[in-house]
């Protein structure tokens, strides 16, 4: 129990440097358990990986230092990497912003509903992320024979005359993968937006209505979005990590390697070297390049997001 005498004493001591350190000590104490583990299981492995990117390492022999060789090979000799890079950028430029908007849009619409029905709606839209059998659904839809649902519908409507091998035809692979990825997009960002909408101060809406906000769209732009900026930032980072690291759906639906590398992405290329060819040095170099790409994009996106609601 603090008496008033104690309080004034504390106020005096607060100005001194010694107190500052003591106060921060409790901060460091709270940080310690997480960050000790973080250094051991994340920072250290990342540093080792970056180190390995300058070596030849086949996971059997000791890594052998090769300098910039992996990076030079990556950009000057590896044509497939350039295809993969082009696909990944195309993928990220389209699915990144669209997925992000979809997450926000659906979270916002679901927020208009209430009670158990709302939890149910959230589940329905989160289903592709929680069920883990997305590939099963889409391989039925995109099946190359006439029994595939997409082929069936298009044949019935007379749009096509014979079935299309969706996942074996070069020009369809990337667009179809983009569609599947968009369908899968309501994941981490979506749920964090749902939670973020809960924390918007309700009285702000009343104040905004008095200030002349007329419809839900204005309310969204002037009240809701600025109030949930931290969640928007979080969603953007998650979106970047997902859009650039896309690989699973490509491997499951189009195979790795896919026809003429039409579905190759940076991460499928990385997996090819890391888990099939056991060239960890080269795979680490790919990971490092991908990392720098994401960091750059993140800088750019954060700049844009700061202007929301202005």
């Amino acid at each position, binding site marked *: *129990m*603090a008496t008033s005498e104690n309080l004034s004493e504390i106020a005096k001591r607060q100005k001194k440097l010694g107190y500052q350190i003591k106060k*921060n000590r*409790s*901060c460091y104490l*709270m940080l310690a*358990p*997480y*960050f000790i*583990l*973080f250094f*051991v*299981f*994340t920072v*250290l*492995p*990342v540093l080792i*990986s970056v180190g390995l990117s300058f070596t030849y390492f086949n996971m059997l022999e000791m890594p052998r230092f090769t300098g910039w060789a992996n990076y030079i090979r990556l950009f000057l000799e590896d044509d497939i990497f350039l295809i993969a890079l082009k696909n990944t950028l195309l993928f990220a430029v389209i699915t990144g912003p669209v997925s992000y908007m979809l997450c926000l849009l659906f979270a916002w*619409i679901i927020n*208009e*509903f209430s*009670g158990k*029905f*709302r*939890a149910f709606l*959230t*589940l*329905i*839209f989160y289903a*592709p992320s929680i069920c883990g*059998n*997305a590939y099963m*659904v889409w391989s*039925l839809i995109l099946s190359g024979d006439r*029994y595939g649902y997409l082929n069936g519908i298009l044949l019935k409507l007379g749009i096509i005359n014979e079935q299309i091998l969706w996942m074996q035809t070069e020009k369809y692979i990337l667009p179809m993968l983009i569609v599947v990825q968009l*369908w899968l997009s309501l994941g*981490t960002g979506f749920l*964090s937006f749902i*939670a*973020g909408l*809960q*924390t918007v*101060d*309700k*009285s702000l809406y009343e104040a905004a209505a008095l200030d002349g906000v*007329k*419809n*839900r769209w204005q*309310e969204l732009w002037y009240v809701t979005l600025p109030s949930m900026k931290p969640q928007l*930032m*979080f969603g953007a980072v*998650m979106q970047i990590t997902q859009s650039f690291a896309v690989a699973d759906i490509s491997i499951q639906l189009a195979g790795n390697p896919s026809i003429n590398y039409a579905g190759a992405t940076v991460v499928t290329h*990385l997996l090819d070297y890391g*888990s099939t060819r056991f060239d960890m040095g080269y795979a*680490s170099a790919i*990971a490092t390049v*991908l*990392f720098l790409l994401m*960091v750059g994009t*993140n800088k750019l996106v954060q700049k844009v997001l700061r202007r929301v609601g202005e």
Partner: protein
Amino acid sequence: MKTIRLFKPKQKKLNRSMAGNTLLFILMAICGVFMALPIVMIVNNALKPLDELFQFPPKIFVRNPTFENFSDLFVVMNDSWVPFSRYILNTVIITGFGTLGHVILASLAAYPLAKHNFPGKNLLFGMVVLSMMFSWTVTQIPTYMIVSWLHINNNFLALILPAWQFGMGLYLMKQFMEQLPDSLMESARLDGATEFQIFWKIVMPNVKPAWLTLAIFQFQQMWANTGSMYLRDEQLKPMQFALQQITGGGTARAGASAAVTFIIAAIPIIFFLVCQSNVIETMTTSGMKD
């Protein structure tokens, strides 16, 4: 006009037009059908008798529903070399501690990062955000080496300790805590509360939607982990591993594996619904803003 009742009846929302409501409802219904496909398929497959499972072309909906697949599954489970209850216990330990520990540690570290100023703060936080952008595939090998050095291989700790420090959780919690008004903590501080008490009694209850959401993400991750990389002893393996072994049984076990797919999806869904309906409840009970 059924739609109106679905909207919050007591606190009538401002700035809402009837036409807009109807439009949104129709949009949700159309999209919802597509998004619900995976759940619909899993439930229907689990109820299909064998001849329908092998039917070509495959149909989505079941015609003669049966629980045969589940009774098949129980037969297979009883045959397992390690009692099935052991797998369940392992999963409870791994998923339970992995989720609970992460939510607590990540929140504990997020609080000073969100609400205090101290040397090194930006550096630490920046590292966490950037770490999420480094490909997990590549760091797997160094992580494996570290786990071996620490001698926690073939131990639950090999799955639990790395799970406690995932970057996403800290980032999510920090973003939500940042929104809390400082005055909330200031008054408690004047009452002589320690930083830990402020964290536990004031900050955490006010960011309930955040940690419930984080629990969903973490549970999903831990539940999906087969542990096959680190756990060698059969007695240590989680349920997910045992269930996936059944799925690998080929055509002879197609029925049982349809039931397995159902269970693998159903458990995180139940957890999701429990957490998610609480996320919504907090909205009506908390009036935290000053």
